[in-house]
């Protein structure tokens, strides 16, 4: 039974028939791992989290926490702590009472409750707000209390349901760092749901990208970023978004070439792609950071149409061969609309997808 996995999900389904919201989920989460479930709204990430928590029953498959099958086990007996998007603090209790509620319910002696609340408060620096009620606290403070409330329970697994999405950008970044630090020091198993890909990338040991109730890809943030398993993942992860160019892969006596509207590229550049025997309709994915621009006009010919300065970098849109590509450039280079530029794709970092299925081709 024990596999060392904190959470084991085997061909798990939720819902029935046409109303099925999760399809055949396979996921193993190791002890101490920080796994982020990410995807657009309605992709089933929260449903999956709530299924792990026990608020939703799975209709098929197996779900085990700590090696124990938890089918039919109520949330309180699953050994989990949970942090909610709306904080869900008890408004009539002080922060201290909120932190200690679970222990009080469990019948832990008062002195022990005080000790454990104190140590968590120490960890999260909650002491100044312990005797205030949630109504007197700011959003960030509330969420820290809510995180503390989950940690007090000393659970095997901690679940986070978009805990930062109600906070403003600055606080979100702060708490994100705090959460990552917390995980590094505690090494507890954490499952975190977000639709924010920056949060997902920065926090995760491993990412689980979901769409329409199916797992699209599981991997480290860098794996998912550099080698997206399909076109959906490629477009969802990464900001600014990846460029997609329709093309044909043609194999002849001269070798294999990729025919794109912006020109033909020899295929030797694409690492690990097997030569196709017949022309294949593909989509080439190029991240804006891998589109090089040359003000002196070397390479494919294009014209700058729009620039979006983002501070540290500027996103330059270039029209070339009837399509528009975006390119990340250092702001001091000063590209301006109307300017003719030379354009080169760094094909070492491109991804190629089958146009019909959207699946990644090659390594």
């Amino acid at each position: 039974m024990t596999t060392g996995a904190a959470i084991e999900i085997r061909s798990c389904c939720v819902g029935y028939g046409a109303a099925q919201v999760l399809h055949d989920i396979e996921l193993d989460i190791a002890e101490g791992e920080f796994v982020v479930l990410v995807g657009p709204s309605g992709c089933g990430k929260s449903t999956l989290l709530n299924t792990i928590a026990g608020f939703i029953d799975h209709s098929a498959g197996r779900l085990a926490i700590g090696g124990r099958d938890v089918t039919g086990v109520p949330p309180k007996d699953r050994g989990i702590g949970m942090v909610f998007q709306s904080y869900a603090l008890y408004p009539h209790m002080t922060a201290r009472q909120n932190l200690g509620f679970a222990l009080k319910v469990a019948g832990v002696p008062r002195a022990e409750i005080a000790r454990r609340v104190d140590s968590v408060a120490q960890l999260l620096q909650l002491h100044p707000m312990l005797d205030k009620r949630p109504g007197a606290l700011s959003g960030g403070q509330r969420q820290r209390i809510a995180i503390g409330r989950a940690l007090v329970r000393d659970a095997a697994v901690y679940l986070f349901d978009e805990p930062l999405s109600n906070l403003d950008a600055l606080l979100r970044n702060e708490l994100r760092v705090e959460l990552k630090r917390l995980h590094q020091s505690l090494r507890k198993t954490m499952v975190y749901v977000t639709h924010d890909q920056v949060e997902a990338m920065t926090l995760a040991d491993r990412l689980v990208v979901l769409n329409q109730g199916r797992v699209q890809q599981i991997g480290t943030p860098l794996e998912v970023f550099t080698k997206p398993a399909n076109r959906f993942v490629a477009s969802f992860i990464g900001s600014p978004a990846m460029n997609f160019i329709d093309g044909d892969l043609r194999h002849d006596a001269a070798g294999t070439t990729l025919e794109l509207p912006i020109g033909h590229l020899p295929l030797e550049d694409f690492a690990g792609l097997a030569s196709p025997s017949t022309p294949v309709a593909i989509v080439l994915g190029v991240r804006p950071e891998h589109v090089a621009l040359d003000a002196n006009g070397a390479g494919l010919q294009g014209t700058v149409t729009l620039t979006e300065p983002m501070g540290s970098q500027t996103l330059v849109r270039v029209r070339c061969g009837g399509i528009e590509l975006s390119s990340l450039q250092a702001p001091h280079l000063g590209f301006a609309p109307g300017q003719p530029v030379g354009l080169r794709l760094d094909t070492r970092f491109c991804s190629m997808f089958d146009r019909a299925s959207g699946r990644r081709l090659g390594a």
Partner: protein
Amino acid sequence: MVLPTTTTRATGTPAATRQAIPPPHARWSRHLPTALLAGAAAAFLLPLWVMLAGSLKSMDEIHRGSLLLPPLRPTLDAWRQAVGALSPGLLNSLLITVPAVLLSTLLGALSGYALAFSRWRASSRALSNLLVLAAFIPLQLFLYPAVLGLAWAGLFGSLAGAVLAHVVFGLALTTILFKGHFEQLPLELLRAAQIDGAGFARTFFSVVLPVSMPMCAVVMLLQFTGIWNDFIVGLVFAGAENRPMTVQFTNIVGTTFGERAYNVEMASALFTAALPLVVYFFSGRLFVRGVLSGAVKG
């Protein structure tokens, strides 16, 4: 409630900014709501004034003067008589109302909670619909079976019987009100309690009920006024020695020989209505807040 606050806010803004941009028709129309409200208040206060003034007059003065005039030689004689006659009724009313309000509120909250979070959605919906129906059936229809039931239980003609009747008759309404309110509670709050290990009862008493205090206040006020002003349940179920104030009040008004003592009747009416009046006066603000927090998820 909205109109007076907007007018005070308008007049409350610094005069300088007000005068800088003279609104063309504002002066006239701004005072219209205030005038309307003042008129409405006067219309409601006038009968109260007549009653209050009348209760402080002697019968002589009532015969001679206009109803609207203030008492020239105020006397507490009428009040002394009214209080003397109604005091036992006041005690009975309290003994019936207080436990009946508390019980019907608590039981309504409990059953509303059970219905709102029932696992069996369809049956709880069916039950709720039946309750809505029950809440609006006139209670006269239930009188006969209720009398038989209470007589069988040996509670007919006692304070406990009256309390029980009030609780049973009020339960449908309090249950529906609480159910509707609990369904508006944030789901995550209840889930947090679940994660924290709180079961059905613990969640109710430690989380759901404390966060629903405004709703409790609304329901208790509703029940309080209803039960305090009740006549028929007290008359039928309480028994001769336990008649509430309302029943004794009608006895005073209904069984006079010779000259009607209007002053005593007015004092009695005011005395009977005094407690709800005081309660409303002090909880009016709470009542409004409660209604709102039920409507807009608080």
